[in-house]
């Protein structure tokens, strides 16, 4: 009992845990509501599908959270997903080995992240503008690689690749889910336990103070954009494996989904605050809503409206919980 209490206290002492717990309660309520509305919501098959739906949102959410915590934003995520999907699929239809194709795609995606990071940190462009530019460019590349057409099927030879990223299971769990969990574990560890993680928070909290404390602002900023691009690459590959072909508009608006997952989970768009556990809950709320509303028979339009409301309400809720009231903006 005593040890238990101490554990809870320690848990609550983690910065940002408060908001995570609040939204977790929201997530549980949502699950209960959908469970009552539809008894098959909790069926093994749906849970598996649901988690597979959450995985990509979680992955891009992790990337966006990294960038947001430094006080920047990455608008190029969706386009990099599209680029990843199209480049890998195109290469595979041209007969390149799927793993080789993935490797080439990875290099291309990381190049975008590298450019993003330097535009923001070295050239001091506002991140919104810099990544708006690379977003458009990356989408253009996604369209041009196969001459402005979606690709044909990536074929039988890519079966192993498709199983690895989407259709296969390991120990009874879909690989996509396992990939997302593994990525989360790695990046959560880096953010919370390592020097690089500290630097990320410090830059988001006060970039001048960080610089004067010997933090390499350029290096760290480039790293977070690389993380974001890497995760977008993974999602693009997963999308390609799922569909068995490349689609030019893959990942459309994903950068905003990633912002939503992060923000619902308590990551501040102003930087310096948030933890990746929150991003898990944020991505889960997103997935549960999509899945649950679909099950309940709601059309896409209604789903969009509901999710939009949830994003606003969850952030509002946090403000209310933290301050105990609607705080007036002081002049």
């Amino acid at each position, binding site marked *: 009992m005593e040890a238990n209490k101490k554990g809870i206290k320690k848990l609550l002492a983690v910065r940002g845990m408060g908001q995570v717990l609040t939204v977790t309660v929201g997530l549980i309520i949502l699950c209960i509501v959908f469970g009552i509305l539809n008894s098959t919501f909790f069926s093994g098959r749906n849970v598996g599908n649901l988690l597979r739906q959450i995985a990509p949102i979680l992955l891009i959410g992790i990337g966006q959270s990294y960038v947001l915590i430094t006080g920047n934003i990455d608008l190029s995520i969706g386009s990099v997903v599209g680029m990843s999907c199209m480049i890998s699929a195109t290469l595979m239809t041209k007969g390149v080995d799927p793993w080789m194709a993935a490797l080439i795609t990875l290099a291309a995606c990381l190049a975008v992240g590298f450019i993003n990071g330097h535009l923001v940190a070295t050239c001091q462009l506002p991140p919104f503008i810099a990544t708006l530019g690379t977003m458009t460019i990356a989408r253009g590349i996604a369209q041009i690689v196969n001459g402005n057409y979606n690709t044909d099927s990536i074929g039988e030879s890519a079966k192993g690749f498709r199983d690895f990223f989407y259709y296969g299971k390991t120990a009874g769990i879909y690989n996509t889910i396992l990939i997302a969990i593994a990525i989360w574990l790695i990046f959560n560890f880096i953010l919370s336990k390592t020097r690089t993680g*500290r630097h990320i*928070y410090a830059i988001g*909290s*006060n970039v001048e*103070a960080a610089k*004067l404390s*010997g933090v*390499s602002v350029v290096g760290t900023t480039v790293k977070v954009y690389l993380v974001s691009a890497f995760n977008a690459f993974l999602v693009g590959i997963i999308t390609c494996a799922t569909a068995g072909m490349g689609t030019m508009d893959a990942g459309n608006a994903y950068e905003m989904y990633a912002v939503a997952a992060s923000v619902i989970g308590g990551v501040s768009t102003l930087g*310096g605050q948030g933890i990746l556990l929150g991003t898990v809950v944020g991505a889960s709320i997103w997935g549960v809503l999509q899945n649950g509303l679909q099950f309940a028979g709601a059309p896409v339009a209604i789903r969009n409206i509901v999710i939009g409301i949830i994003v606003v309400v969850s952030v509002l809720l946090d403000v209310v919980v933290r301050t105990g009231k609607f705080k007036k903006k002081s002049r």
Partner: protein
Amino acid sequence: MEKFIVELKHITKEFPGVKALDDVQFNLRQGEVLAFLGENGAGKSTLMKILSGVYAKDSGSIKIAGKEVEHMSPTKAQELGIAIIHQELNMCSHLTVAENIFLGREMTKSGVLSTREMNRMAAEVLQRLKININPETIVGSLPVSKQQMVEIAKALSVNARILIMDEPTSALTSAEIEELFRIIHQLKREGCAIVYISHRLEELQFIADRVIILRDGQYVTALEYSSTNLDEIVAYMVGREITEKFPQIECEKGKKILEIKNLNAGRMVRDINLELYEGEIVGIAGLMGAGRTETTRAIFGVDSKESGDIILDGKKVFIKKPEDAIKAGIVLAPEDRKKDGLCTKLSVADNIALPNLDILCNKTGVVNMKKQDKMTAEAVSNLKIKLAGDYVDAGSLSGGNQQKVVVGKWLARNSRVVIFDEPTRGIDVAAKVEIYHLMNELKKNGIGVLFVSSEMPEVMGISDRIIIMCDGRITGELDKKEATQDQILKLATQFEKK
């Protein structure tokens, strides 16, 4: 029965975990300048925020001009003529002076801004205060002192009768301070009541009529200024007598640690040559804008250098960025703690650990939390930082404690040279003495201390040697024994003939 324009009684305010104000009383007469004093964290700012409606009181009563005000809000405070001139100025720096003065109550004619009318009226207010600023100037292009005056003009243009000034002189030069005092006197003559919060007690003789002192959230006393003296005031503030305002220790001057040769970096750092020896504190004096901060920044590698050598312990070191300086053993505790010194949203422990992660991490870059906790605990106890816990936000601390964190994070590692830029700005007497003790401790341990300060008594009291700068150049060097205020001032105003 005396008539007060402001009367606060039995004010209590609690924040989670701390009682910021405990049954405090406060009053203000019409047409007086009241010096509101207390150490950092004594509760001055909290009380003023309650008076201006930013915070709600937990209990107690607020009377303005004899009328009880139950729920004070910023709007209500404005209606009642209460205005705060903040320590950090609240100006829209991209707008003009007139636009700022009329912000939120712009004059319009059928929906279109009456720009000319507003400019004219702004000019009127400025003229009344004899402030020489064009109302069409962009505020961001003005020096801090002028911005502050614009803020005063803004308060007056909404007919403020009660002006609260929070550390108004902390960023001003002495000439600018004189100008401010002139304006304060004029406001007083016009019948404004002024609450003046400052840590620079020497200033009080020029303006204060009365003094109210708080300590640890409690009311201590109210005194007529004419019937008291600074020693008494300080004793009330601290709760004990401070015997040594500038503690000094004698050390043997050892071997040369640092030598700067022909350092150039922009207009504000020109041909700087200086030497620093073991066992001494070298003060850098000068007026605001003399290039002192720029010099320290160039040495530390924040700003790029055009030319010059830095020789540390006889070896030439190459410093291109702060990381290089830290690695070499030169560290800088910067001047503006909110802007440059602290990550206010991170915990005290994180802040202290930030520049020392190389020590705290293992080879793979994983932070050793045990080591971090130990380092934080040591820094907190050495510097007597008052904390609810190591993991509270650095931004929630009082100014003095924040400053101690800024200093503390650099002392957790072994450095050869520590540069302090205005380490005692805006902090109270007791905290100042603690910082001085700390500098002495470094000096005793053979670490070179460079120390920039705008407060003459401090430079003279703490330094073993004083370097004076003006216009980006070193204009003189004085030994502690031969230095006088006059001499320093003369060197500090030795501008180039043009």
